């Protein structure tokens, strides 16, 4: 069969159109098993534009005060208590002033009480999180609805880029199987497995059913949780009333934890 150029171009373009059209038909078969309307949030869920915390360490003094916040979180989230300190897994922990605010700690004549104070640290749920930028699988992501920096354990491949990126040390890696080091398992929450990174998730599972984060609930008012985007929220009122600082603001990640420094009467 002989064919001139005109006939060839006609045939080629017609078969391309058919091919592209056919491909889209095939790729749409089998889609849409679930309709979007079939799934919706729990009506009890707490809603906000940008969740944040105000931590007032003046309300924490004894070891027990700190420990009850840590335990409240670690117990319900099946956080392992690994014997090797280099394998420590922590969602919320206490640390010194020097480690919390390293860029101001060299001041020799500052308030001694503040300088010797311990602080409660956990994920800052930054507005501009470095960990999210580096994650190659989008296992860690910022929830568009409320600004929580979430960790999807199903996707985490354990590359630890996020641990290197986080300036606050909020992330821990499971170097060993965590199960043997969980004393009492909370059967309503998953554990993690060896080789994934974990961190504070702002108790997304509690917010979804209308409960406050566990640490805020256990802290007797030392940790206040609320919407930073709502000028009438309790956290915004506290921030407006008292002098607060954030950890490492110079890095531009816009942390969402505000630490109250000093009492209201002198501020």
């Amino acid at each position, binding site marked *: 069969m002989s064919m001139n150029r005109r006939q060839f171009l006609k045939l080629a373009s017609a078969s391309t159109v058919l091919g592209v059209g056919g491909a889209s038909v095939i790729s749409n078969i089998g889609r849409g098993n*679930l309709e979007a309307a079939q799934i919706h949030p729990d009506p009890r869920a707490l809603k906000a534009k940008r969740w944040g915390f105000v931590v007032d360490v003046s309300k924490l003094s004894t070891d027990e005060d700190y420990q009850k916040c840590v335990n409240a979180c670690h117990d319900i989230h099946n956080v392992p208590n690994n014997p090797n300190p280099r394998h420590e897994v922590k969602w919320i922990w206490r640390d010194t002033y020097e480690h919390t605010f390293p860029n101001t700690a060299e001041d020799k004549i500052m308030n001694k009480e503040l300088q010797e104070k311990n602080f409660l640290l956990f994920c800052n749920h930054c507005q501009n999180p470095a960990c999210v930028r580096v994650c190659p699988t989008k296992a860690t992501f910022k929830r568009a609805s409320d600004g929580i920096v979430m960790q999807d354990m199903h996707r985490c491949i354990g590359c630890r880029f996020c641990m290197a990126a986080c300036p606050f040390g909020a992330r821990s890696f499971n170097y060993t199987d965590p199960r043997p080091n969980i004393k009492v398992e909370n059967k309503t929450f998953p554990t993690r497995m060896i080789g994934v990174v974990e961190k504070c998730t702002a108790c997304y599972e509690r917010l979804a059913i209308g409960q406050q984060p566990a640490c805020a609930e256990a802290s007797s008012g030392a940790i206040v949780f609320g919407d930073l985007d709502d000028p009438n929220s309790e956290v915004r009122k506290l921030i407006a009333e008292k002098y607060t600082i954030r950890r490492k603001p110079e890095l531009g990640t816009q942390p969402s934890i505000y630490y109250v420094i000093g009492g209201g009467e002198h501020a």
Partner: protein
Amino acid sequence: MYNSGKIIAGLAVFFILATLPFLLNLGKANAKIEPSIDTPEINAMPVKHCVEPKAFMRSEHMQLLNTWRDEVVRNGNRIYVGSDGNEYGISLQNGCMKCHSNKKEFCDKCHNYMAVVPYCWSCHIAPKENKS
């Protein structure tokens, strides 16, 4: 053909050996794998039903679970409206396994038979085996 007797006999032996597994099982019914729904929680239900009809769950539960996982973890949607119009809380540990509290007889039975190893249980805590 040289050595035709040996070659044909050898071929016959090979053919019989190679097809022996099929010949032995010829006409026999396959062992039927039936996941057990015999748990106290399911037996207590007045009308036994899952979030979707049995046929759908049998063939599509993997897609359903994947969709549920993504909706809960990534979009925060925790309520599923089944085709029967009822609302169900989306959760593997607190939903599915509350009724199907017999993982070994329910999940593992088919998964072992099909030699599939889903990684659910490396993180999610399996229920204590319940049998009625």
